[in-house]
């Protein structure tokens, strides 16, 4: 594990990504302690530029403090990104493992289901799902999980396909281990590295998907997220650059940081690619 940490931290981009991501997590967690009044409180006239008294990031189209909105927006983005990824990873592992381990009819059946989700344009499916479930944080998480699990499932299936006939698995089978135990204790730990890499990238994609949903007005209207901030301020772009630029930058920095972390993890977990 220390070798892994050393390999990960020796990459400057991975280190930077990790530091930025950690900082965003801290801001998200600390937001309610720093700003007790919450992001939707109207504090003054709308569209005041950054640097106005008490408004380091200016105010938005409704006269809300952009600084607070950005901090609370991080909570929404991270919550959706991480929860949706956890859900889709769990579903993906379960279905991918079953398909890869058992093969045959089970594999055929599960892979056809996976393909069914893959052939529908993902974002259109997401919009329909969220509109159907009523826009809310939960429906965004469920929707994003539903459109992303096939990626995990396919990776897990591929890993299981190649691992299931290895000697150590055969040995475990000869010892009389049950299938569930083989899957959970023998194959899964060995299949984890690619899953971790895929999942770390998926957090970023989930954040982007949530932002796009909120931009279109399909996010939770009671919460301010970075996407809904951009969507709501879109028409003010010409008179108040900060209302769209700052949340846009926040999304970009977060997703970039997560991609750096993902790349770092990929290199660190893949011995063949490490220098």
């Amino acid at each position, binding site marked *: 594990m220390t070798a892994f940490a050393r390999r990960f931290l020796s990459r400057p981009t991975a280190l930077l990504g990790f530091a930025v991501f950690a900082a965003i997590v801290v801001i998200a967690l600390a937001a309610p302690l720093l700003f007790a009044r919450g992001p*939707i*409180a*109207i504090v003054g*006239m*709308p*569209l005041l530029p950054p640097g106005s008294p008490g408004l380091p990031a200016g105010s938005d*189209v*409704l*006269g809300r403090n952009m600084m607070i909105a950005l901090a609370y927006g991080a909570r929404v983005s991270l919550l959706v990104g991480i929860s949706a990824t956890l859900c889709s990873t769990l579903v993906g592992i379960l279905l991918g493992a079953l398909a890869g381990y058992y093969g045959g009819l089970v594999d055929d059946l599960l892979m056809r289901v996976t393909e069914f989700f893959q052939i529908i344009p993902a974002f259109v499916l997401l*919009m329909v799902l969220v*509109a159907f479930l*009523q*826009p809310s944080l939960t429906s965004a998480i469920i929707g994003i999980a539903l459109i992303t699990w096939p990626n995990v499932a396919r990776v897990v299936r591929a890993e299981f396909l190649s691992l299931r006939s290895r000697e150590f698995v055969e040995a475990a089978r000869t010892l009389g281990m049950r299938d569930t135990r083989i899957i959970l204790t023998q194959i899964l730990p060995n299949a984890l590295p690619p899953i971790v890499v895929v999942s770390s990238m998926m957090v970023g994609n989930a954040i982007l998907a949530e932002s796009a949903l909120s931009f*279109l*007005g*399909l*996010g*939770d*209207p*009671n919460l301010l997220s970075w996407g809904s901030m951009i*969507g*709501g*301020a*879109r*028409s*003010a*772009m*010409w*008179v108040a650059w900060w209302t769209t630029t700052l949340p846009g930058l926040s999304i970009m920095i977060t997703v970039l940081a997560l991609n750096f972390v993902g790349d770092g993890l990929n290199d660190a977990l893949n011995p063949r690619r490490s220098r």
Partner: protein
Amino acid sequence: MTLDRRAVLGAAGLLAFPAQAWAAPKGGRIINAMMFAEPAHLNYPLLNTRIMQEICGNINEALLRFDWKFKPHPNLARSFEMSPDGLTYTFHLRNDVTWHDGVKFTARDVAFSCGTMLPKVNPRSRNAFGQIASIVLPDDYTIVFKLKRPVNSFLISFMASNAPMMPAHIYEGTNFRTNPYNFKPIGTGPFKFAEWKRGEYIHLARNDHYWRPGQPGMDGIYFRVCATPEQRLVEMETGAVDIAMADDIDTVVSSRLKANPNIVTRSDAYNGTAEIMIMEANMRRWPFTDRRARAAFLHAVDREFMVKAINYGEGKVAHGPIPSTVPFYDEKALVKYPYDPARARALLDEMGCKPGQGGVRHRFGLMLVPDGGGAWTRMGHYVKQCLAEVGLDANLEAVDWPTQSRRSGNWEFDVDTNSYGEYGDPAIGTSRFYLSSNIRKGVPLTNLQGYSNPEVDRLFAQAALAVEPAEAQACYSKLQHILTYDVAMLWMFERYPLFFHNKRLKNVITGPNGPADGLGAVTLA
């Protein structure tokens, strides 16, 4: 009502059509205007929305024209008189008017429009024209309406957007919804339909045989499809487009155009529509069953700030059911609910709506409309914030258009956001929201709240039938008192949509009907 506009905006936002590259020739004697979305057809009374009024107002005209004080003036009618009992109206028509296809415009067209087509397809015409007992045509250019009972909004029903004249020789005996002329309309107006290039523009050409001397002042109008708000702003600023109507420009950026020396800003172009932004409380559900809860709602919201900040000053607080810009408004009759959170809390305490856990008195849904973050959504967000201060927890509900109409029509809401236009007379635009006879499940834009007061029903009926204006005024004054005392609606503010035009044009807005009166008088400045 601008429901359709917002519906299309929402849809356009989702589909995000790329900007059109096409541009009409700039400058010259052509007027360039914009459409946020294309209408389904150009049959004016069949789809009486704001964008239709703006386009078809140039094609189909009305018998009368109204000045800034809503006094009637001759248009297609040379003169008109009313019998003392208010039961007979006689119109003498101009005899020099022809339809765009060369056929003479006669009293037969008026009889067909007012007697058959308008009451059948145009909801706002039914109130007045539904009371017609008989129509007599003494000659080709005279028409006499005999009414079942007096209707004092009868004359204002001849305002352009309420009663466009339609050609009998084209529509009589046909299916109004499928008539091929819905796509190449025929009218008597200063501009005639020339070409419709789907997805790009609608072109109206000059009517060389127009009856009004010296008009039209320009050679034609192009209405270009311009789907995104950012694009519309740039088109105006560069001068590629001469006119931006109603909600073409979001109030958030209107300051940019107002400061532009090449652009004229008008805030009175929609006085005739007189739109009030409202929230409707479902009075079947506690606590909104109680007038004190509704009064507390109004006391809790700083509507002055709402106008100043949320709508960037383009409007005025609405204290009652009748907008302050139209006849019958009576400020003295109103019971007002100024911003006073302490009073709001006291009223809620008094009615037993007490703070529970976390200081929350009551949690309810506040249904938004999908206007893409526009004035209605901003109003909802602001109200949520204000109500939280007095312990009312409004949960904002984002819905799509079909859901919005279904839920509001079927009364499946606690509070919703909406707006209504008054259209010149309370009997046309206002009473439909308060009459108990208009509590019609499944029909949007009716009395959705379930407000019912027999005295209000009686006064609206009396006012609509009053022959003397003073009698109608007395009824409407009493109504404004009762309705504001009852808090029969959560009135937010009167919205004055801005109209912009390039300085190179003049005589663009000539009355309270704004661009719906057509652009015949426009000339180069």
